[in-house]
């Protein structure tokens, strides 16, 4: 009996922390999303407006609908890109040896760096007048010499995705290296003895056994991609036009430029619901009912 109470007592600090930092803000945002709260009129929420904010988002605001499309494009590109990039690095570095260990340690650096610093740096790197990336790309591909990398919708989205891949790829590769190193070496040796090419071994042995780790990496990256804000804010400001305005960026804009906290909360709440939905689908696929037990 005492033990049963003790376990709840031990869980209490963590529960309180999660309640204060996650459940309460999320719940409060949920309530605000049904209210009229324009900061230019009042410092506190005023009227209960039921579904007005959500109605406005889906039926009267083309910028919000645009942000849904932009978010979908970014999530697909960055989640796929980062996982594939991570896998390529992992395949190169999943060897035993001192040099590989050092390389794997260094790999964590891009992930450890502040996104704010990376966003600002990439903006300089891509500057058409003195950016190092621009200079290197111009030298390698002369036909791209006059491209304004953040000045067209396609390129701006591409660089947002590439910047995010640069940040996340190495971290995901560390996860995947762990997965690769846990694949039994005798299976691979047997396939080699049977005359299978490296390509065939990869597709028939490595990839299937790596799939659970890949799936988790993909889920993790998808969730984080949905929340993309930093690079949009620093690299493109949502432009050109609104071509890189993600949902989080748009919610920020509605809150801090339009002073409309009620509407911003509604957008954030839609994003939270989307994330819950996507996560539920992924986990259902990853861990079918009964498998865990």
């Amino acid at each position, binding site marked *: 009996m005492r033990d049963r109470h003790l376990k709840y007592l031990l869980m209490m600090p963590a529960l309180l922390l999660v309640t204060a930092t996650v459940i309460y803000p999320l719940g409060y945002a949920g309530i605000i999303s049904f209210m009229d709260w324009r900061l230019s009129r009042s410092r506190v929420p005023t009227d209960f407006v039921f579904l007005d904010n959500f109605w406005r988002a889906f039926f009267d605001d083309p910028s919000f609908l645009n942000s849904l499309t932009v978010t979908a494009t970014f999530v697909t590109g960055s989640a796929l890109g980062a996982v594939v990039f991570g896998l390529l690095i992992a395949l190169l570095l999943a060897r035993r040896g001192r040099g590989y260990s050092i390389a794997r340690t260094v790999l964590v650096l891009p992930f450890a760096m502040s996104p704010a610093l990376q966003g600002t740096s990439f903006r300089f790197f891509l500057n058409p*007048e003195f950016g190092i990336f621009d200079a290197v790309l111009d030298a390698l591909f002369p036909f791209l010499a006059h491209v304004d990398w953040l000045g067209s919708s396609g390129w701006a989205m591409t660089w947002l995705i590439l910047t995010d891949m640069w940040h996340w790829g190495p971290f995901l590769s560390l996860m995947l290296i762990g997965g690769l190193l846990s694949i039994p070496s005798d299976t691979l040796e047997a396939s080699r003895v049977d005359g299978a090419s490296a390509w065939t071994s990869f597709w028939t042995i490595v990839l299937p056994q790596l799939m659970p780790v890949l799936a988790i990496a993909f889920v993790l990256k998808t969730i984080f991609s949905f929340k993309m804000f930093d690079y949009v804010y620093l690299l493109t400001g949502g432009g050109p036009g609104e071509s890189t305005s993600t949902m989080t960026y748009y919610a920020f804009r509605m809150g801090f430029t339009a002073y409309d906290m009620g509407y911003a909360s509604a957008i954030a709440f839609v994003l939270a619901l989307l994330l819950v939905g996507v996560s539920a689908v992924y986990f259902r696929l990853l861990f079918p009912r009964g498998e865990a037990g």
Partner: protein
Amino acid sequence: MRTTRRTLMGTLLTGAVAAGLACGATLANAADALPYGLKAGKPYAGTKLTYLAPVAGQYEGHEARLKEFTDLTGIEVEFEFIPFRNLLEKILAIKVAGDADPDLINYKDDWGPGLKDLFVPIDEMMAEDKVTLDRYYPAHQLGVTYGGMIYGLPLRGHAQLMFYRKDLLEKHGLPVPKTWDELAEVAKVIKDKEGIGIGMYYSPKAAQNVAVWMNILWSNGGELFQDGKVTFNSPEAVEALKYYVALENDLKVNSEGAKSFEQYDGSLSMGAGQSAFFMGWWWHYGSRILGKNTKLTPEQVGFAPLPAFKGDKSTTFAMSMPTAINANSDKQGAAWEFLKWVSNPDLEKRNVIEKEKRNVIVALHKKNMMDEEVNAANQGLQMAAAGSLESSRIFPQLAVWPEVMQVLANAISDAVSNGADPKEALDAAAEQAQKLVDRG
């Protein structure tokens, strides 16, 4: 009653003593009187104020001279500096929390209508201490007045100027452009011969492209709003946008990167010798065009009012950054003392002429703008800006303006970068903006 000689003498003596005492008191008061309308007797001695300001040399200059204020009033002030980009977020957080700290807040004028509940109207304090807005240019007076009430005093403000490479224009025998068409012609020649063009900017980030387009719009006779209706999709507005877009896409007179450039990038480009022209706030002159890490010298850079689009007179856009007293502060009296001191023209003048520690060029008082010493220390920049400020206008004073401006900035960017038709882009933006205005 008979007046005797004795009573007459007594009356005269009493009068003389009274007059002497009154005169003495007046002289003593005059000796005690403090400059800038500060209250004598240090009634707020021991008060500690906090002041939220953006990072800029001008405010650092104020902070460096704080001891003078503390010696006069006994009030201490602590500056809290924050990058300009994060200033609005910080102010909104203060508003939501209802914080009494900071006691004084510096903000951008077009944020004012949406934030004014956070600020104390200072009309009565100004009247009591005979402080008026007459010392500032009309654009800066308007920037602190909402609904007929004054909410702050402008401490920082910018006029827009055209900066150009004087040496290159002289080298090729070209005139200083006075119209946008002349600018395009001169820039074309320079670009063909020197490979550098106008440091123009079209990025929607920070919405600075709107300010450039507005100058063309106003010069073309267009308006953003009329009688509460959005009119920035009028034929004049569309023509202005077409021209702004054509500079980049058809006339090709801009330096590389203009589509993704912010104003900041444009001045950086000029300072690095990569652009021959730059149009923007004058503060860029002191730090980005002629700063420590730039390639140019004052002899190479000229400045002039922005070109006119139609006719020979341009109407430029001016902005200011007033400082207001936090309505939640319980030290409003002391805060007003500080505001009187920090906004005084003598302090501003010293900030602008004493170049040893920081290169501050921003002045707002009419008398400082025309002051010979000020202009001698700054290559005559203030006098040129004064000409621009005489006919300057400011952003519309609407609570929803910041978001309307972002909608416009996106439309402009869409037209130049994504090939959107200027009329369609402005029509869509106008529809969106009208909804915002109607919603209020």
